[in-house]
């Protein structure tokens, strides 16, 4: 029965918010558009609160409302709120690079589009049918194409937009081709029914007996598409240029929202296939290779970077590697997807907090120093001790220092890998953590031991101060008490009500 706490209500409110912002923007007098960002933050915060009261099932075969879906929806909502706060700080930079006559002109859609992206990410979190997976993924990807190229007077942004569009379209091609193969082989698009049908069809006498290669091919195509989405090597070629060229809030959104939604889809898609004894070992082997490549590429290529956005782009590839380690540690004989979901969910919450914090500080500093190189952070401790402290927390957590949430996430990933006796993965992981210490601490060194280029103090608005303080508190609190978040993802494939009680 539809009621106001039905699961789909969350997405419906978000979509209504998006359409409302667009309409209000066209009817409002020209001028400052910050009110759109504040409206967005307020309504999305209400939806975030609302999500804790969601009960019942959607009754749709496309859409799951289990606690995992709700958990990843909250990640999408929180990252969108963070991105809108960042977009408010980013307005002055944005205004310089878009055509427009006067303050606020042309910036309206920059606040409305992330809301639609958020709806797409939320649908991805719930999608349990390839049709909905495809539509939801495209909704988020297409709005990303626009957002990446938004600053169209800046060549870097346009270049990033074109690169993302072409490679994204290629990724979509792989996804659709993979889906058609799966449908052609199994005759199903619903993941639950694929999971039921596969063992029968693969058994001797079944129609797919002996056709394992074809299924591996199909899953391989899907892995290419989803690997692109989560920025895993060797599908990472687009990442550095797109991250550097895109407007900074969009970069943050790409690295947090897109990755989180990509991983929940990856988990759901892989589950029916990895559970098959004839496919599992091979798929886990592929995941191993992806994890090793992402870890090595992300951490080694980040070493010589001087631009902080580019550095964070490589770091995003590296973190995709850590997340893949937990998938590669699955035991094909008895894959523990609930455990992997828990590890990935917790890691992503930590990643959300620290990445948003790093990008928020970067947005504030770069819009007042006119550049996003590490050199622009020189002497930040003198210009704004508050921001410098926040950045230390973000970098320490990204590197994985104990007492931060980043440490606990990495600890869970590595303990899963050790339990699965994947010592090669652990070894490469430790090397990349060590490399991470070097490049994250370069930023800290610049803030504290270099002389500032400009002396003027950095001004921080009230809303951003609140956001920075919340993120710092979140990183430190979850680093010490990870329990509440971990418990909220304990149950998988159970109705959301179960986790409420």
């Amino acid at each position, binding site marked *: 029965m539809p009621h106001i706490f039905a699961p789909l209500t969350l997405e419906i409110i978000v979509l209504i918010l998006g359409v409302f912002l667009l309409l209000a923007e066209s009817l409002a007098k020209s001028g400052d558009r910050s009110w759109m960002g504040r409206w967005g933050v307020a309504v999305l915060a209400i939806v975030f609160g609302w999500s804790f009261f969601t009960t019942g099932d959607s009754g749709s075969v496309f859409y799951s409302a289990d606690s995992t879906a709700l958990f990843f929806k909250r990640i999408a909502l929180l990252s969108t709120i963070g991105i809108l706060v960042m977009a408010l700080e980013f307005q002055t930079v944005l205004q310089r690079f878009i055509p427009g006559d006067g303050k606020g002109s042309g910036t309206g859609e920059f606040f409305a589009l992330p809301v*639609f992206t958020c709806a797409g990410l939320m*649908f991805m979190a719930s999608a349990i049918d390839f049709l909905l997976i495809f*539509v939801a993924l495209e*909704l988020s990807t297409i709005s990303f194409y626009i957002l990446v190229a938004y600053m169209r007077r800046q060549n870097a942004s346009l270049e990033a937009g074109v690169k993302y569009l072409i490679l994204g379209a290629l990724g979509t091609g792989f996804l659709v081709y993979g889906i058609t193969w799966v449908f052609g082989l199994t005759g199903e698009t619903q993941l639950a029914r694929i999971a039921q049908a596969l063992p029968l069809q693969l058994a001797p006498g079944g*129609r797919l007996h*002996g056709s394992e290669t074809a299924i591996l091919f199909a899953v391989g195509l899907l892995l290419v598409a989803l690997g692109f989405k989560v920025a895993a090597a060797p599908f990472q070629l687009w990442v550095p240029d797109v991250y550097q060229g895109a407007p900074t809030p969009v970069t943050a959104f790409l690295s947090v929202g897109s990755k989180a939604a990509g991983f929940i889809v990856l988990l759901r898609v892989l589950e029916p296939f990895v559970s098959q004894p004839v496919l599992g070992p091979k798929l886990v082997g592929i995941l191993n290779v992806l994890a090793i490549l992402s870890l090595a590429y992300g951490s080694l290529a980040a070493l010589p970077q001087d631009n902080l956005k580019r550095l964070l782009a490589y770091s995003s590839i590296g973190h995709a590697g850590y997340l893949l380690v937990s998938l590669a540690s699955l035991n094909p004989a008895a894959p523990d997807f609930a455990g992997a979901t828990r590890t990935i969910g917790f890691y992503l919450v930590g990643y959300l907090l620290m990445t948003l914090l790093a990008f928020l500080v970067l947005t504030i500093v770069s819009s007042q120093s006119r550049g996003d190189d590490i050199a622009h952070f020189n002497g930040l401790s003198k210009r704004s001790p508050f921001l410098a402290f926040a950045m230390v927390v973000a970098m320490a957590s990204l590197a994985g220092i104990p007492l931060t949430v980043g440490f606990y996430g990495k600890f869970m990933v590595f303990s899963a890998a050790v339990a699965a006796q994947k010592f090669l993965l652990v070894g490469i992981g430790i090397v990349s953590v060590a490399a991470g210490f070097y490049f994250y601490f370069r930023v800290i060194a610049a803030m504290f031991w270099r002389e500032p280029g400009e002396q003027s103090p950095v001004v921080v608005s009230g809303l951003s101060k609140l956001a920075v303080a919340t993120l710092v508190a979140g990183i430190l609190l979850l680093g010490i008490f990870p329990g509440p978040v971990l418990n909220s993802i304990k149950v998988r494939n159970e109705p959301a009500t179960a986790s409420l009680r």
Partner: protein
Amino acid sequence: MSPFLFWFFALLMLGFGVSVVINRNPVASALSLVASFLCLAALFVGLNAFFIAVIQVLVYAGAVMVLFLFIIMLLDLRAEQRRRFNLVALGGGTLVTLGLVAELASVLNRFPLGRNPFPPLQGSAVDDVREVGMTLFSTHNLPFQITGVLILVATIGVVVLSKRELN
């Protein structure tokens, strides 16, 4: 479908396909592609797949190819220079093609579903447009509605990225 019609349209389609590659004038190439799509649509009609045939004409021969032609005309492409054949490239290309065909053949041969003839299709042969509509508006309504949002976002994108400078 009568074998004669199948071979007629199949060969015509392949002929136009070759002409897409051989033609040096981009407009002629694009029009050959349209003709090739139309022949493919005729093959679908022969299989009683009227809906796919109509979609093939509307979407591919109509929308996609018109877009191609627009772009060709906007870019003002001239006929390509006739290049001399590079023997090494030609030989290499042939080798790659043969290798790919051999690989595909060996994979398909090892894969039982590809060897056995496909069972004849059953179910509704009548009025597949109605069936598609029913599916979209009843069981598959959720993805269909999200597609609506997707198109809205794409429209916003076109406006945002292509509007003229306002000064």
